């Protein structure tokens, strides 16, 4: 252990422990590192987002090669902003505020450094593997299993370092910000492990332990709570610490903060299924998700009001204090996003908003407004304190604020407009009862101007964030050479000595001691008891998870099986993995909702029983292109070849990237047998013969498809190319339930 606490203490008070003074050095070097990482990765993540925005508005921007298409870059953007930008910001907040609230240095400098460099290593690994196409496809959980294991290790080190600092604290009571940190650390660990349970099929490939509707349920339990416990609770901790500091007055209502905390922890965990309304998720689960989402309205707004009212009597400071400006707008966006979220979870609203850019607007109001502005507010407050000099330019910080705010507004207004326009067009019927816009492309062309407005808004936000980078860089340049750790003197806490003495008391004294402890009530006792407190948080989040998820996994009625639905052929399985690798799921859903307009447009609605061999599920969450659940048999093979080579040749105004390499890259069947074997292990009814002959079966099917393509007048010799596997998979989509008998002779 490198260093624990540097204590230089005198004992002037002799036997009276309360007069002892201890000296504590806070570790601010680690906070500086996290602040710099926040800004660097934030700029990278935003830049990738900007590239994506341009690719959507102007498809030729996808032409940088196979590693830089929209499908490959989209998870890079989300992972970068969620885990690299917001993640590092959270760690900066936790390391700075926890040491001061606990009046103790972080338990171990080595662990802090391991956490920092480990986390940056994970980000670099993500930046390399995601464009290469190594992905689990589940949103915000795309990273493959080796990186997941490293993430677990780094998170455990962080948790141990944090909890041992709690043990070493000199302040008995845990301030509410620390509760939010505790809840975040515990819940993220649970979510990460449960949602990433996979069986590897190779170094960077795997199949999910769950299939179809189960996989979707677990994924959105995770996805929603990643938003809750990485982008909400730690940022609320940040708010409860840094806002009072910046405003120089205590939080408006501490009581409200207690209610805010427990409500969030209890309720958030139930809300995940609202991401799956009208899907083949059982109705009861979706309704539970909706009800709890609406319940979230209250605590979220309680928290927002608590934040804004903290500024009572300090509003004049906003005029020249950029930190407070960022905080006030950030908290306002928290209120907006947490009003909108419950509203979107109401099924009838969701029927319109889901799969459209409305969702994109919603998350960016949260990410740019709440997470972004709270982070920038914190950074501007921290810079002069961490680098021990004046901020280089307050004016530049104010410019950042205004440009950033205009950027957010342009972004979200454009996306609201695009989302609602497209949602209404998808469901519009003419007077004869037919779809008014049967061609999906019409609904894409209509929103293109809005995509350009988003590029403008995103550019402004990105540019404004670079100003923060300049400000930090220039301030750090003029900082004193010797940035030593700040040193404070605190009274040695009397309660620690009492703990030491506790072992010597007899039965009566122990009882009196307990009575004394309970004098101030059980919650106060709890606050001084972090281990028990943490367990209670774990119980609170587990109740919701278990009640919702376990019956889903166990009750057979939830997934009625369909006799004609059969496992994928080896070639189709390979094609599915190419679909996953190229990130097709970023823009195409495979989930037709039982709404009249969708059945009219795409065909019979999707059933839970259709996905029992889908590991992972590929339902998707956004329709930039049309749904593909019933694509099988809709077009001849040649159409798919032409469409993949150049989408404009079959759909003139398509914005889809071209995938010419699918026609030239050789199909790798090296792990096909292994894939079938893993599927068998997971309960998919392949025979041992099928697994043994997997390559032969795949090649035979590929040959047949290639022959048909040639017969239809297409290029020859495609039988060993990736395209045939992808076509095999796409032609299989949604056709099993149309059969009267299960497909007989399996390939």
């Amino acid at each position: 252990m490198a260093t624990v606490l540097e204590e230089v203490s005198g004992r002037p008070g002799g036997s009276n422990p309360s007069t002892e003074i201890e000296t504590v050095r806070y570790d601010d070097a680690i906070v500086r590192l996290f602040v710099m990482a926040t800004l660097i990765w934030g700029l990278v993540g935003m830049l990738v987002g900007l590239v994506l925005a341009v690719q959507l508005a102007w498809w030729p921007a996808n032409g940088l090669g196979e590693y830089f298409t929209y499908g490959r870059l989209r998870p890079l953007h989300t992972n970068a902003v969620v885990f690299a930008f917001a993640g590092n910001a959270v760690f900066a907040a936790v390391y700075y505020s926890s040491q001061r609230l606990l009046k103790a240095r972080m338990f171990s400098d080595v662990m802090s450094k391991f956490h920092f460099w480990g986390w940056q290593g994970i980000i670099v690994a993500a930046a390399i593997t995601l464009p290469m196409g190594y992905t689990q496809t589940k949103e915000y959980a795309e990273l493959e299993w080796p990186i997941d294991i490293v993430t677990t290790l780094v998170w455990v080190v962080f948790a141990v370092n944090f909890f041992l600092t709690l043990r070493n604290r000199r302040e008995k009571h845990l301030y509410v910000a620390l509760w939010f940190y505790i809840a975040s650390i515990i819940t993220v660990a649970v979510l990460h492990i449960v949602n990433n349970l996979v069986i590897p099929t190779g170094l960077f490939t795997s199949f999910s332990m769950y299939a179809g509707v189960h996989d979707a349920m677990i994924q959105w339990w995770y996805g929603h709570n990643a938003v809750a416990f990485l982008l909400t609770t730690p940022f609320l901790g940040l708010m409860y610490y840094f806002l009072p500091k910046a405003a120089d007055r205590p939080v408006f209502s501490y009581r409200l903060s207690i209610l805010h905390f427990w409500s969030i922890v209890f309720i958030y965990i139930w809300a995940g299924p609202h991401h799956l309304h009208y899907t083949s998720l059982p109705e009861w689960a979706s309704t539970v998700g909706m009800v709890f989402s609406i319940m979230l309205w209250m605590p979220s707004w309680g928290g927002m009001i608590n934040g804004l009212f903290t500024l009572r009597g300090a509003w004049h400071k906003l005029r020249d204090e950029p930190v407070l400006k960022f905080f006030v707008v950030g908290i306002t966006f928290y209120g907006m996003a947490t009003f909108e979220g419950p509203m979107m979870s109401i099924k009838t609203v969701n029927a319109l908003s889901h799969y459209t850019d409305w969702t994109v607007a919603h998350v960016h109001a949260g990410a740019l407004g709440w997470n972004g502005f709270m982070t920038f507010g914190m950074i501007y407050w921290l810079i002069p304190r961490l680098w021990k000099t004046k901020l280089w330019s307050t004016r530049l910080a104010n410019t950042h604020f205004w440009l950033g705010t205009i950027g957010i507004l342009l972004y979200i207004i454009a996306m609201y407009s695009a989302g609602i326009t497209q949602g209404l067009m998808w469901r519009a019927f003419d007077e004869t009862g037919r779809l008014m816009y049967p061609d999906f492309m019409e609904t894409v062309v209509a929103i293109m101007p809005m995509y350009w407005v988003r590029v403008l808004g995103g550019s402004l936000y990105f540019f404004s964030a670079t100003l923060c980078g300049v400000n930090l860089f220039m301030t750090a340049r003029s900082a004193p050479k010797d940035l030593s750790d700040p040193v404070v003197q605190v009274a040695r806490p009397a309660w620690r000595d009492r703990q030491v003495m506790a072992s010597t008391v007899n039965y009566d004294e122990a009882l009196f001691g307990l009575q004394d402890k309970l004098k101030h009530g059980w919650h106060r006792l709890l606050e001084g008891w972090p281990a028990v407190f943490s367990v209670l948080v774990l119980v609170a989040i587990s109740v919701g998870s278990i009640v919702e998820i376990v019956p889903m996994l166990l009750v057979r009625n939830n997934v009625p099986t369909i006799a004609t639905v059969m496992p994928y052929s080896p070639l189709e399985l390979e094609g599915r993995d190419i679909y996953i690798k190229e990130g097709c799921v970023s823009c195409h859903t495979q989930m037709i909702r039982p709404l009249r307009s969708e059945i009219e447009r795409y065909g019979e609605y999707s059933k839970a029983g259709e996905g029992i061999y889908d590991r992972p599920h590929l339902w998707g969450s956004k329709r930039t292109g049309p749904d593909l659940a019933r694509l099988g048999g809709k077009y001849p093979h040649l159409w798919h070849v032409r469409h993949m080579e150049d989408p404009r040749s079959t759909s003139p105004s398509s914005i889809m990237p071209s995938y010419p390499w699918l026609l030239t890259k050789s199909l790798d069947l090296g792990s096909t047998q292994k894939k079938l074997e893993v599927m068998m292990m997971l309960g998919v009814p392949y025979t041992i013969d099928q697994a043994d002959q997997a390559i032969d079966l795949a090649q035979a099917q590929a040959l047949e498809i290639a022959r048909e393509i040639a017969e239809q007048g297409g290029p020859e010799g495609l039988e060993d190319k990736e395209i045939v596997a992808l076509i095999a998979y796409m032609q299989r989509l949604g056709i099993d339930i149309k059969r009267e008998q299960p497909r007989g002779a399996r390939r």
Partner: protein
Amino acid sequence: MRKDIMEHAGLAIYAEIALIIFVAVFVMIILRAILMRREHSQFLSRMPLEDGLTVEQDEVSP
């Protein structure tokens, strides 16, 4: 087999128990927050503003 057992185990009661625990704990927390003594909540709310007494580096023993 496993699913048959689980279906006939009468698990519905667990959800109801969970709901009751949820509401009961919630009521306790609300009562606790409402009944909290003003001085105590004021003490707690001032915690971020009191970081300890900052001292100069050279005041500390070398």
